[in-house]
């Protein structure tokens, strides 16, 4: 059955029937108690006249035409917080994924679709059109600069396609495409701890917009290419860098599509924590003697949807070491119960700015309540969204990567690598200053 006319005809799917086939054991939409905890805890509630409870009820009532065409599915970031707070563990995001997949391609948000198409075009799998050969060139150029600038990194290596390297490291396209100088802090950290790592010339990109389009075959293809590259290089550990959804999309994709992955997936955050515990990254908070306050955004994709609270603990351990325990303020709620910022699930790229900012208001309030001057987050979408709502709602905080603060703390953060720091930290611990404080 279809509805609507002309271009982009909506395919009407039977949500109840589809859900019955897809559901994990023990989570049954029919078991919904209609209590509303899901909607109460969902920042997308009220957008487009919809909320998670309503979505389930409409599915149960057989309102398939409405659900097959509601734009709400692009405002739901599939963060699974509804499932987290549900006594019956009902997962609305599965239905949203179904609806996304069934939308006519030409009606789906252009930003998400184009990014996925771009990813399918080149072996780099980059959504920003960075080809493999461009990437190799950019990496070499920046590495040369680092080696020239700081004598401590004169022998810095940035391996690409190194067979048998212990770590395969992925890379969000934003850095090579837009801000290549931001690549350096990560490399410096690997160099500092003496990690045996490599990029791949193919399949290095982290982002996966194909998952957000709801197109399972495209999602599978993305993961397949990336897994193949890691398998080919015989790396033991695939490290996801500071990007949230890339972690979920890979391990979940391997599981969902039954792919053969001969490696262990890991988050860079876990390694930051491990290296700090082992003394290999001797970070401290001495640089923060003015007591600048920091908070932390737990990326849904990494915490609630993937590793859970152990990773949240690692994030806090690292953050507190970096900024000082007394300067760290948690948002409320946090860890697995944290709110999605509104940047996830492709919302940031969906062109629905008004809705996205309404969604993000809750995050903005959370950040404001902490009184923090900086938000740390290991996720590019969180990063961009929190910057945007900060600016939109008149906040005065900044958003930073972990790698920036790690290098800052170690005194190896170059002047050009401080894009996300404010004037208060622009001159702190610059290389060559020794341990002098500003």
């Amino acid at each position: 059955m279809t509805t609507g006319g002309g271009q982009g005809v909506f395919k009407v799917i039977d949500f109840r029937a589809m859900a019955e086939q897809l559901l994990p054991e023990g989570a049954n939409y029919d078991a919904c108690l209609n209590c509303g905890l899901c909607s109460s805890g969902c920042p997308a509630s009220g957008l487009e006249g919809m909320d998670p409870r309503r979505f389930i009820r409409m599915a149960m009532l057989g309102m398939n035409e409405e659900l097959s065409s509601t734009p709400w599915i692009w405002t739901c970031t599939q963060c699974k917080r509804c499932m987290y707070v549900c006594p019956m563990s009902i997962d609305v995001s599965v239905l949203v994924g179904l609806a996304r997949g069934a939308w006519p391609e030409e009606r789906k948000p252009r930003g998400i679709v184009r990014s996925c198409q771009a990813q399918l075009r080149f072996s780099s799998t980059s959504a920003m059109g960075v080809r493999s050969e461009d990437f190799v060139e950019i990496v070499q150029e920046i590495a040369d600069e680092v080696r020239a600038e700081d004598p401590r990194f004169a022998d810095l290596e940035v391996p690409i396609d190194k067979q048998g390297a212990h770590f395969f490291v992925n890379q969000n396209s934003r850095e090579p495409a837009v801000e290549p100088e931001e690549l350096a802090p990560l490399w410096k950290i690997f160099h500092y701890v003496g990690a045996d790592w490599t990029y791949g010339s193919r399949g290095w990109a982290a982002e996966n917009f194909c998952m957000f389009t709801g197109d399972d075959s495209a999602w599978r293809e993305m993961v397949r290419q990336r897994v193949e590259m890691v398998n080919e290089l015989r790396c033991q550990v695939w490290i996801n860098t500071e990007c949230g959804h890339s972690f979920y999309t890979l391990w979940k994709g391997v599981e969902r599509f039954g792919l053969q992955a001969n490696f262990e997936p890991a988050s860079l955050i876990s390694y930051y924590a491990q290296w700090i515990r082992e003394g290999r990254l001797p970070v401290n908070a001495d640089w923060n003697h003015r007591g600048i306050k920091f908070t932390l955004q737990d990326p849904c994709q990494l915490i609630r949807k993937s590793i859970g609270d152990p990773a949240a603990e690692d994030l806090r351990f690292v953050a507190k070491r970096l900024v000082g325990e007394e300067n760290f303020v948690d948002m409320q709620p946090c860890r697995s119960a944290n709110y999605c910022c509104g940047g996830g699930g492709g919302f940031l790229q969906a062109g629905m700015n008004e809705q996205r900012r309404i969604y993000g208001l809750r995050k903005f309030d959370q950040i404001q309540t902490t009184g923090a001057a900086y938000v740390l987050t290991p996720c590019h979408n969180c990063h961009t969204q929190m910057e945007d709502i900060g600016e939109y709602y008149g906040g005065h905080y900044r958003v930073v990567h972990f790698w920036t603060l790690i290098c800052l703390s170690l005194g190896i953060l170059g002047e050009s690598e401080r894009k996300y720091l404010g004037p208060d930290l622009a001159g702190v611990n610059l290389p060559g200053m020794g341990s002098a404080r500003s």
Partner: protein
Amino acid sequence: MIQEARQYRTGLAVIGSGLAGFAASVFALQRGIRTAQVGNTGAIAYTTGYLDLLGWHGDRLLDNPWSGLATLRQEEPDHPLSRISDQDIRDAFFGFTQALSEMGVDYTPPGDRNLLGLTPAGTRKPTLCMPRTMVAGIAAAAAGDRTLILDIAGLDGFSARELVANAGASWPNLRSRRIIFPGVDAGVRVFPEVMARALEAPAHRQQLAGIIRSVAGDAKYIGLPAILGIHRPDRVHRDLERLTGFTLFEIPTMPPAVPGIRLREMFEQAFPARGLTLVPQQKVKSLELGKTTARLHLNDSYGKVEIEAETVILATGRFLSGGLAADRHRVRETLLGIPVSQPESRDHWYREDYFDLRGHPINRCGIRVDEAFRPISESGRPISERLFAAGILLGGQDWIRQRCGAGVAIASAYRAVSFAAGCL
């Protein structure tokens, strides 16, 4: 993909994250026991925030729950509360409310008499302890003082007019007023949780305080639905009292309500900080009881988790929380198939009249335990030396009619932990 099952070893594993599970973890931490807790959201999400011990016995509203307990011990010797001494119950409530207060939600300590907490209907609920944010309503009602109840446009199911119509007979100076919550378009649905979180930001408190001042008139007390913050509500409460100059109290609301979310989020943060291993929002799939240890198996979104524990407390609750389930014929305990005392057939689970004051037999069914709160088999022997049980999963009580759910949870958790500690 190469993934190792995550493994934990612990002295005590608490299964369930309702009131009983959280209470067990609290008592275990107080005893310095290495503890892991697993369980997903259950009935605690729907709590009023009141911690009742025993509100009714038979058809008697209990002013003094302790004297009610004395009667209960004679008339219902198998009631879980009949098997715990007053001193233990009192210690349990003291320990638990003190822990709550330390962790961020201030509670009144147990007293000698029941408090009559306000309900959103304007009726009253007998309870032993309550959140500090709700206390002032008791005094205001008792004195019949000038009080303004506020409700909020867009908050369904909470009507100040309704509360006043029902409570007003014994409370002459009670008035009602509807306000619009700052930042919310008039009439658009707004959940209590959303307002509570908004009020954690000082700017929103100032705006609300301004609205309250403008409508308060000659009121001495202001009653509000429970929206005064999720995290550290007492700070929100104090600050709003300071900003308005009035004594404020909260009234529970129907689900999805704030008091339960408050408790759950508080535990989820406070426990890991105190060294407890918490695996939130996951159900244990299976439990193996060995000679020297027990092994819990579960899957979270990321894969397998195994917990090896020397002792286990089962606090999985009833139907809402998944500890009990029933097909068309029998009620069963879901994790181990522990025998459940129950009526002969489904026809006897519920009485004909929904509000029959004798209560429904199904609410009294549950697992049976020995003196050490170890679940017992048909033969009356403990199923395992290291398995204990707590909470409303226990049979022989009627938490609905007797208003004793929190009492059973907290007191039995206290006893179960002390017996478990004896095995460690």
